[in-house]
């Protein structure tokens, strides 16, 4: 493999990996506040992209993206308010099936609204063949956008959870819901907020990646699977590990095409997922003891 090709794969892997990381972090935020996996997480990514693509006909790109993110956050909030909040003492299974149902609903809704066509946002800067060359590395400006946006999101989230009062209250709910309620924290609002946050993150990632990967009504499912794999790989509930795991998964996937045909790319993630679940269900960076001391 030439050096140039190596970097080509690496950059592609990191780009996809960054999106997987954001989806995985979204999984973790909701997992930490409710103890469930939100299977509609991938649909947030799809919705972000699709809404932005529709809005960009009328609005400047930046505004279209902002509006798409806001709308997806609203959908996330509605999802929690309508389907999760009113349940009295819901079982994990009940909530899981609800999120699967919502993911199907959102996907079919998207099919109804946007049809089967494959769409994409325009490149934010230049076009598909614009590239910056650094020695052996060729970077599309869009890749820089993706990495920048995902990096900023993760950093902002980290600051939010560790420095802000609201973030601290959300962490408290994740650690010990009863004790948080006894401290006067409205735990249900924190759950809503976790849906809003992860919907917004997913939507923004969906907009950033759309020019590269295109968006279709069912593109959420594959992303959810990859994000879920990354979340498990890092150890559920641990967001910083999920970021590392997401990048790792992206890079593995990118390099896999040197060994197996492109069509098997998705199989790489699935086999990896199965492998982890068989061998190390607490994740690469987790241990059963640490799992109990989970944190964002």
């Amino acid at each position, binding site marked *: 493999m030439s050096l140039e090709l190596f970097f080509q794969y690496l950059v592609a892997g990191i780009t996809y990996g960054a999106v997987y990381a954001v989806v995985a972090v979204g999984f973790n935020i909701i997992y930490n506040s409710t103890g469930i996996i939100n299977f509609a997480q991938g649909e947030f990514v799809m919705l972000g992209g699709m809404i932005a693509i529709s809005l960009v006909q009328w609005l400047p790109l930046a505004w279209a993206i902002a509006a798409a993110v806001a709308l997806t956050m609203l959908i996330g909030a509605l999802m929690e308010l309508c389907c999760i909040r009113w349940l009295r003492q819901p079982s994990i299974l009940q909530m899981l099936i609800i999120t699967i149902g919502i993911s199907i609903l959102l996907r079919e809704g998207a099919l109804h609204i946007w049809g089967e066509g494959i769409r994409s946002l325009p490149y934010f800067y230049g076009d598909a063949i614009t590239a910056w060359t650094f020695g052996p590395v060729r970077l599309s400006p869009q890749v820089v956008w993706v990495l920048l946006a995902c990096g900023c999101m993760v950093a902002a989230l980290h600051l939010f959870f560790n420095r802000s009062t609201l973030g601290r209250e959300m962490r408290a709910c994740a650690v*010990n819901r*009863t004790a948080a309620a006894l401290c*006067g924290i409205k735990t249900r609002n924190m759950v809503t907020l976790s849906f809003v946050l992860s919907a917004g993150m997913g939507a923004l990632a969906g907009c950033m990646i759309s020019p590269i990967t295109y968006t279709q009504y069912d593109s959420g499912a594959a992303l959810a699977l990859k994000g879920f794999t990354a979340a498990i790989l890092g150890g559920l509930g641990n967001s910083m590990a999920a970021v590392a795991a997401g990048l790792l998964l992206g890079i593995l996937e990118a390099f896999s095409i040197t060994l197996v045909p492109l069509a098997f790319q998705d199989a790489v993630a699935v086999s990896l997922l199965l492998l982890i679940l068989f061998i190390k269900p607490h994740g690469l960076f987790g241990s059963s003891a640490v799992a109990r001391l989970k944190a964002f």
Partner: protein
Amino acid sequence: MLTIRNLESGYGQLRVLKNISLHVRSGEIVAIIGANGAGKTTLVHVVAGLLKPWRGDLFFQEEDITRTPAEVMAALGCVLVPEGRQVFASMSVEDNLLLGGSILRKRNGTAALRSQMEQQYARFPVLQARRSQLAGTLSGGEQQMLAMARALMAKPRLVMMDEPSTGLAPLIVREIFTIIAQLRAEGNTVLLIEQNARAALDIADRGYVLETGKIIVQGKAAELLANNDVQRAYLGREQIG
């Protein structure tokens, strides 16, 4: 300050509390003693709003709190130091205190929160020494102090403590009870749930004895200490003659 009338509650089909009536007056330490499974924890969980009552009325400072949820109870000034401490294990001591003061911050602002935290550090110097340590790494006694300090951060009117002595060395238990007595001296009201009947009645003004969900004896702490039945059942002293 707190009045409970004809309370019944439980879990699922299981009725744990049967027709409980009790009251706590301002400035008192009231002890509720009883064996394992008598319903002590269930009782404070109902008051704290963690569990719904089936029947009966609860009043806190003339306000009907029969259906008030936990987060509102804390805001009303009625806090619970839960059994088994329940500190936020993966967060720092300081974060735990800040969380305990979230009500105070909403009501009185950040300056009040800071000064309240300084007061708790003065009361529990060991917490100040460990302020940036993760709460889960503290010893049992330190965690109990943290749980108490966290509850006091809300500037409560009534502090309920569920089994503060569980699993602690006798010397630490004495320290904890000294602090509880101090709280009364500062004008606080305390509802104390204890299996350790002697330690509780020694500092309490009044007491209730709970047995299989019913109050069987009540009275002044000194009277309960002298009561033959209480002595036999809860103080481990067989009557001679």
